[in-house]
């Protein structure tokens, strides 16, 4: 504004009341301000308008309301009507606007130039034409199975379009990849209860919560919902308060809210859960449920387990089991994404058995309103895909909504395998590690610019509407796929644009939610309310008879057992799997327990490396004489957990590289103005 003279300033002042809205999309400071000639219907200068949408910073899918002033969203807040988050949001959700307004966004489609190897901007018609031509050629020669589509596990209309699109071009190779998948839990529930589903955990009903490590207040499944339910039962109300016991090697942010921390070793959660179950069964507290699981848990006596997990004396485990059984409503939570690797499924199964033995299934663990997520490809499938790519069996890889180069274990060699693919197409909005290796980038709208929908759990369908005109020359991936399908004559709804495709898909949603009504009314209501939801009843669950065949092996960690350290890779509350690293507002919030991780994200030290801030001493618990919190430091050698081994896949946390605009001062893009000193004396 410095080049505006005083007279100009006064002129502008006279007009500014009505005119500020037009500044919206201009890069240059406005030189002339003109009041609206034809005022957009929904805009009153100075008054906010609110639009309902969904938060897509993580798979939890909270409903949001964007506060829009003069055509630009300035704040997102939780949608009070939404059943998932009831008006609340986490730090990642609050920072989602910095995804929309990120200076590092990819501003147009880009093609890697053959000559220079650098990206060059191209037009959408060129980009789509090129993609259609390549896919058309493969399809004509009957090799369309050489097209692979990678996407995250979000369920919704776009997911349906992916399926239809892959069918239309004739490729079976759709790979769902979620960096923080829930497959161990799903598999454990299938083994024990015969249901490969993620249930709803009724934390608000639970008087005693025993967690085996899940970061349910940070990243696990639906943190905002869980935080609300958790505080309903665990904060002090009317003279009552629930009790929360955290069992695990690391005092995470979630764990820091516990009334008691039992510092078991990283691989020990399974043994503790099995030993607790055994106590319940052996003492007849599991009732008729005990008989079927007795042979499974018989070998795991508290005495034997206590020693190998670093909890002593063994009565501690018995006490935990008694507390669990005597609580009017108990709930055990699995380790979730805090534990991946080869022990994960068995540990989740052990926790499910504990819940089963205590009669919690159907009470505090409710199947029916299940979490909706596509099953993520396991390590086996990803290894197979990487091998196929390496062998030149993949000609086109389309990558949407995930960053496998960054989040997959380096040992898999995914990045190098991707280089063998003829045409890598990324739909990323920012230059992430995968996009940087792509040949063609077709930048998607960010969620707040998009039409779309998302199904976080059964019975809840959130609708997303654009809250701003697209800032850059981006295009919704649904539109791109529809255009390509039309281009190759594969005919999915030819001539339909993505918003119409979505709207048509919602006719089926109406049948599910409000059959018989007028669709126009239903649609309008859904758009303004932010979606449609209905209550989903419980599903009866019985023990899977095949559970008798499950064998719990002694858990182990991989690597050199002679050193006293173990590496724990855990999800970051700030950055999730790294995707949030370019949102500056979060950079200074989040995981207060690991303050070094506040700014950029480098792998913080795992619990095995934690210095004993509170050295184990005589250590009577002040409000619990006789009981002790014990920590597992230094007694037994630890070894490296099976991070990269089969089953889970090692997960890095946080970006290696923070966003360009975020280097140095200015986490949210706030460089010093030219001429300022670089740093003042301290």
């Amino acid at each position, binding site marked *: 504004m410095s080049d505006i003279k005083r007279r100009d300033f006064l002129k502008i002042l006279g007009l500014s009341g009505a005119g500020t809205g037009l500044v919206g999309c201009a890069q240059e400071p406005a030189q002339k301000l003109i009041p609206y000639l034809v005022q957009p219907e929904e805009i009153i200068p100075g008054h906010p308008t609110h639009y309902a949408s969904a938060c897509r910073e993580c798979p939890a899918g909270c409903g949001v309301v964007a506060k829009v002033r003069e055509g630009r969203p300035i704040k997102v*807040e939780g949608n009070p009507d939404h059943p998932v988050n009831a008006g609340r949001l986490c730090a990642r959700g609050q920072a989602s606007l910095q995804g929309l307004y990120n200076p590092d966004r990819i501003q147009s489609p880009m093609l890697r130039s053959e000559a220079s190897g650098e990206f060059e901007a191209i037009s959408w018609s060129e980009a789509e034409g090129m993609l259609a031509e390549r896919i058309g050629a493969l399809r004509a020669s009957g090799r369309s199975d050489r097209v692979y589509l990678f996407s995250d596990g979000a369920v919704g209309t776009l997911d349906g379009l992916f399926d239809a699109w892959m069918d239309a071009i004739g490729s079976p190779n759709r790979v769902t990849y979620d960096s923080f998948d829930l497959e161990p839990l799903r598999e454990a529930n299938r083994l024990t209860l015969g249901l490969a589903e993620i249930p709803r955990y009724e934390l608000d009903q639970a008087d005693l919560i025993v967690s085996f490590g899940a970061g349910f207040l*940070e990243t696990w499944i639906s943190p905002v919902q869980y935080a609300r339910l958790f505080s309903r039962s665990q904060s*002090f109300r009317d*003279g009552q308060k629930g009790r929360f016991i955290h069992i695990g090697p690391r005092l995470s942010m979630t764990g820091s809210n516990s009334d008691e921390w039992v510092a078991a070793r990283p691989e020990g959660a399974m043994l503790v859960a099995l030993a607790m179950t055994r106590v319940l069964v052996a003492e007849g507290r599991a009732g008729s449920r005990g008989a079927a699981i007795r042979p499974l848990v018989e070998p795991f006596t508290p005495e034997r387990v206590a020693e190998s997990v670093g909890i002593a004396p063994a009565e501690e485990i018995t006490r935990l089991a008694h*507390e669990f059984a005597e609580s009017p409503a108990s709930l055990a939570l699995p380790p979730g994404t805090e534990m991946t690797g080869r022990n994960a499924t068995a540990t989740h199964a052990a926790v499910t058995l504990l819940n089963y033995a205590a009669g919690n299934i159907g009470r505090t663990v409710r199947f029916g309103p299940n979490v909706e997520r596509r099953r993520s490809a396991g390590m086996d499938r990803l290894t197979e895909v990487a091998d196929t790519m390496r062998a030149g069996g993949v000609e086109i890889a389309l990558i949407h909504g995930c960053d496998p180069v960054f989040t997959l274990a380096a040992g898999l060699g995914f990045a190098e395998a991707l280089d063998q693919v003829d045409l890598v197409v990324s739909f990323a909005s920012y230059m992430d590690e995968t996009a940087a290796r792509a040949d063609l980038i077709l930048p998607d709208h960010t969620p707040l610019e998009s039409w779309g929908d998302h199904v976080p759990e059964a019975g809840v369908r959130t609708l997303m509407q654009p809250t701003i005109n697209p800032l850059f020359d981006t295009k919704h991936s649904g539109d791109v796929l529809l255009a390509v399908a039309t281009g190759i004559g594969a005919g999915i709804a030819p001539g339909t644009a993505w918003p119409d495709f979505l709207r048509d898909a919602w006719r089926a949603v109406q049948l599910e939610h409000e059959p018989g009504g007028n669709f126009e009314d239903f649609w309008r209501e859904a758009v303004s309310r932010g979606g449609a939801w209905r209550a989903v009843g419980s599903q009866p669950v019985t023990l899977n008879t095949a559970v008798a065949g499950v064998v719990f092996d002694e858990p182990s960690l991989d690597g050199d057992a002679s050193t006293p350290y173990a590496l724990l890779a855990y999800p970051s509350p700030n950055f999730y799997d790294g995707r949030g690293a370019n949102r500056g507002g979060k950079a200074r919030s989040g995981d207060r327990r690991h303050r070094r991780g506040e700014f950029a994200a*480098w792998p913080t030290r795992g619990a095995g490396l934690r210095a004993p801030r509170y050295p184990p001493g005589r*250590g009577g618990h002040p409000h619990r004489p006789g009981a002790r*919190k014990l920590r597992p430091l230094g007694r037994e050698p630890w070894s490296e957990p099976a991070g990269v081994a089969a089953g889970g896949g090692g997960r890095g946390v946080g970006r290696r590289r923070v966003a360009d605009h975020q280097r140095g001062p200015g986490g949210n893009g706030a*460089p010093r103005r030219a001429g300022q000193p670089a740093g003042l004396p301290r």
Partner: protein
Amino acid sequence: MGLAATGRRVELVSLQGSHDDHDREIAEVISLDVAAEAEEHAREEMELHPEALVHASEDADPKSPYRWGMAVDLSSCTGCSACVTACYAENNIPVVGEEFCSQGREMAWLRIGTYYEHAIEEGANGHGDTHGDDPGSDSFHVVHLPMMCQQCGNAPCEPVCPVYATYHNPEGLNVQIYNRCVGTRYCSNNCPYKARRFEWFDYEFPFPLNLQLNPDVTVREKGVMEKCTFCVQRVAAAKNTAAYEYRAVVDGEVTPACAQTCPAEAIVFGNLRDPNSRVSQWAKSGRSYHVLGELNTRPAITYLKEVARGTEET
């Protein structure tokens, strides 16, 4: 897994001087028994004097119908920092980055302190006395303490300003007038809560980040002091709406960004001059205390003590 020296040095930036409150009245934990008993007393008191107001309600113009206040329930707060990020988004707060934070140029109106409390007030062993504070003990309770401007009724920052840039408004808010401020930083020096932050630089919001700026909140320039305003723009908006409808602002009509987003519903905001407002009810709770209350700053923010529930044998 083994460890090996890499020779690389990384400065670890910490924004909290100490995780111990050194027995000052900062982070408070009580046991369930003590909490239940205190709550019972407070309930009886409230039944006897339902219209009683908390002391902090006096610190405003006698004619004003409002004295804005806040209450934070530490037993609900999980330390997730959603409030911190919401505050950044609402109030156009620049993120200064790691380098400047390491130099003490931190910028945040709201922060969450983490305290490891060894001392827990115990019911069975005499009421309210603190014990178990054994430095050798490895047991502790973690308290997350959201800390922002306490909007003191007797604010230490106000009398030291040579240019009257900070003053007490009729509704009890401690208000900062940016264009009066000359940046002496005396106020920050005098604030026992370290809630005031100085704009050391002009921060640019490169396009399109500038589009996110809230037009209801001034974008501050280099050289001014700033701090939590209780989202005064939201207070003003609610008063406007109420004035159009010829009524007073009702309880729950004003919600600052931090309270709005809190997933654990740990923050309540409202009028302390209304004895039935939620914030008044919370402030009259048996668990209520003021951080560093012995300094007689008369804060408008009441904290509700964290409650630790031990095992049955306690």
